[in-house]
């Protein structure tokens, strides 16, 4: 199973999903910021 993921999941997959997670986390931060302004 571990080897399967090593072969199927590339560094670009991790980068792409990482960018998605970071963006939506920042967006939650923007909601909080807009609430405090």
């Amino acid at each position, binding site marked *: 199973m571990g080897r399967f993921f090593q072969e199927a999941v*590339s560094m*670009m997959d991790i*980068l792409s999903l990482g*960018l*998605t997670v970071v963006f*939506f986390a920042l967006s939650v931060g923007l909601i909080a910021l*807009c*609430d405090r302004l």
Partner: protein
Amino acid sequence: MTANDVLQTLLYLAVILALTKPLGVYMAHVYEGERTLLDPVLGPLERFLYRAAGVRADEGMTWKTYTLAMLAFNALSVVVVYVMQRVQGWLPLNPQQFGAVSADSAFNTATSFATNTNWQGYGGEMTMSYLTQMLALTVQNFVSAAAGIATLIAFIRGLRAKHSKTIGNFWVDLVRTTLYILLPMSLVLALLLVSQGVVQNFSAYKTVSLLQPTTASTPVKDAEGNPVLDEQGQPKTETSTVTEQTLPMGPAAAQVAIKQLGTNGGGFFNVNSAHPFENPTPWTNFLEMISILLISSALCYTFGKMVGDTRQGWAVLAAMMIILVIGVGVAVWAEQQGNPRIDALGVDSRASALQAGGNMEGKDVRFGIVNSAIWATATTGASNGSVNAMHDSFTPLGGLVPLFMIQLGEVIYGGVGSGLYGMLIFAIVAVFVAGLMVGRTPEYLGKKIEAYEMKMASLVILIPPLIVLVCTAIACVTEAGLASRANTGPHGFSEILYAFSSMGNNNGSAFAGLNANTPFYNLLGGVAMLFARYWLAIPTLAIAGSLAQKKLVPAGPGTLPTHTPLFVTLLIGVVLIVGALTFLPALALGPVVEHLLLQT
């Protein structure tokens, strides 16, 4: 412009105007929760969906809860579309046996379809399985459009509410938009398209013999891809005769219908609605052009009806239509003028009974100049992004029109929902500017516009140009950015500026000429699309939440009426001045310089 150009433009606008009120009234009924003709059929399904998902339909949400629900839904959408592309090789409905989409392209496409941009770095018929086209891309065409309209309806509720903390329920708005508006309209349009020859099947691609075999000369290349030279130092060519062609198939009509109605724009095939299987006849061309603006236009009436004064909706629609007509006029005129370099060769490019005349490069002879120019202007004003002609082949000034329409912020009709809430933000800025002139606290529809609303409105207006200009600048100074151009000089700059204007405003149309399917453009563009969609929706919903809590102030003698020709003029002025001030220097470096070079 010829009489034919004027007649076709007037007919197009007249049909949209005629449909605006009936559809606008129907949509107002949907969002007010009133009974509609479709209730007996869709009501049980709607209630089942709420029960299955644990949604309490009568429960209102604060702007923060509403926004979080919208973000959570869209984050999940991005991940699902991404994963489906990466595993499509293992899934059914893949007769061409396409493998996984590359990771960077899958990221770009996932963000593109979830954000209603539908920028496409890939060619559909060469990349996506039928299952991916249907379950990933077409589903997003519905729900991303519905999310945009939901945000608008929440904004309208904020404008008309009195001392309320809630602005509606995101899940209810999403479901009702999809079930009662987008699905029925798409079904009718898809059937009309199929009747005209748009394909809708699961067949494997067909190989057929050409009626007229074609002979072509292609350059000979060595093992490293370099051209081989003959004894005279000229590139060697080899002649080959093509006798067969492959016809792509697939469930195209269903996707084409919603990509037009939902202002998504992503084509089933690579060349979008210039492909005869997506847009086979003048009749389908007219239907698809109407569909680009129809819902956005009708939403203006829905807005007026929901705030209790339909004149407000007509005023906003008038501002949009005036800018659109100017854009169409300039684009048709520029394309009908043709290319002076070709004229200088003695080619007759005048319009006559035998030819369209003008610049026909990149245009389908079935549609001619006027239908290509109307489509280009409408699709870029409306955040649709589908094309029936190649914008890269327009004259410099003709190409400037779609570019500038995008750069105005996708508020000239705009995306379904997002266009109108963008325009209403401009309306808030317009009443603020008017308030500054007379020294009075500005009001819009009885709500006082104060510092908080202006801070949020500034974010909405400043974020897209920031994304576009910063990303364009990065592409212009990096090898990866410059390597994708098909042209150097001002036209090459226009290709890059267009790409990021399109992605940074959630339009999705391409200038062509730029090879955008590279890790650089896929990743940078993907991030740009996310910011352009959600970082505008968040402050918009924040304004809605703030306005909802305010009391309604009765109109007094100092109140600026916002349904008059004076306000329409002011609104047009604000939109054009903001657009012009932000992008004129960049436009001067691209299409304007190219136009001047063409004249010398």
